[in-house]
């Protein structure tokens, strides 16, 4: 049985102008008016939030695809950390130093 008072609302808050909205927690309320009241009491009384959102939990659509989010195969080529250049760079510099790099025109 899902009574209206069982509705759960997720609260998102922005600490300062320009910051990302981050998840703060959740409140339970029959409608958005009371949800906002709770959110303001719990997350807005101490000058800790520049902006507050409440979103009904049942309105959130979640992507549930572990093969994409946590892929079983190596996907390191898609991330900066996938390129380890330290030793290659050292070798290239050493090589350039011994063979003599072309002088830069003044």
């Amino acid at each position, binding site marked *: 049985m899902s009574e209206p*008072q069982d509705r759960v609302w997720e609260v998102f808050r922005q600490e300062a102008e320009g910051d990302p909205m981050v998840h703060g*927690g*959740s409140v*339970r309320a029959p409608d958005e008016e009371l949800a906002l009241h709770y959110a303001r009491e719990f997350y807005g*009384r101490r000058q800790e939030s520049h902006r507050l959102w409440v979103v009904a939990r049942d309105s959130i659509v979640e992507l549930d695809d572990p093969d994409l989010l946590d892929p079983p195969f190596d996907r390191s080529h898609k991330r900066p950390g996938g390129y380890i250049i330290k030793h290659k760079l050292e070798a290239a510099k050493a090589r350039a130093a011994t063979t003599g790099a072309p002088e830069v025109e003044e």
Partner: protein
Amino acid sequence: MNDQALTDAFYAHVMGGGKVEADDWMPDDYRAALLKFVEMHANSELMGVLPEREWILRAPTLRRKLALTSKVQDEVGHAQLLYRVAEDLGKPREQMLADLLAGKTKFHNVFHYPTRSWGDVGIIAWLVDAAAIVSQQALRDSSYAPYARTMKKICWEESVHIMHGRDVVLTLMNGTDAQRAMVQEALDRWWGPLMQMHGPKTDPATDRDLIWKIKSKHNEQLRQEFLSIYVPRILELGLTIPDPALRYDQAEGRWQYTEPDWDELRSVVTGHGPMSQQRLEFRRTSRDDTQWVRDAIIGPATVAAA
């Protein structure tokens, strides 16, 4: 995966430092242990405001009255946040409140005692909240992520309470001899319950809450941490701690103290403390008195009273 394989994979995940979200599958015994832990915490926040609320009308200045009112509102807010975490685990909030009022579930020992003077308000806000924050900070690492996130917010607010309490104590200590004596008398009464608050030593090897990382530190670790930070801060004010055996053992690297009265702790948390029944009765009366508000906002209660 069958149930056993799923269960094994779950425990391997949390014991390896992995986190669990509200919608994730979890074994029944993890859910039960977690619910019991969070529910007790929520009950303690809710009941914890009653000793202090008695002093709102007697606060010495307007600023103190505002601060105390705000602290009481914070603590009730913490109870609301924690009941929210707990109800996601499957137990309706109305049932948790009914069980609390029926004496079926517990709340922390320190909230079963009377507050006799304004000195108590300072000692509670400073040292009871400090002992609580030591364990709450450790809960920011809980394997149950919604609980861990809630603790981050709660710890931030508790740090304000500790400053408020320390400020009350410092003001009294800078006052008259009578005021200093009032703080000392309050500390003498609260020291026993404070030392009991984190509970008896447990064997970390068999403590399920610890193994499953519902909590990240065991009782004695928390008590030692509390003593290391707060004994010097108490002594530097010229206060005396009422335990002649209390000393830091350099060789062992730990605080030695008189064994706390565990019989008193057991008796108090099972509803036999000096104020246990009055506090529960106050909460029952307040639930009845405010029923019309809930009826007006969400309609007549759908859960039968206990």
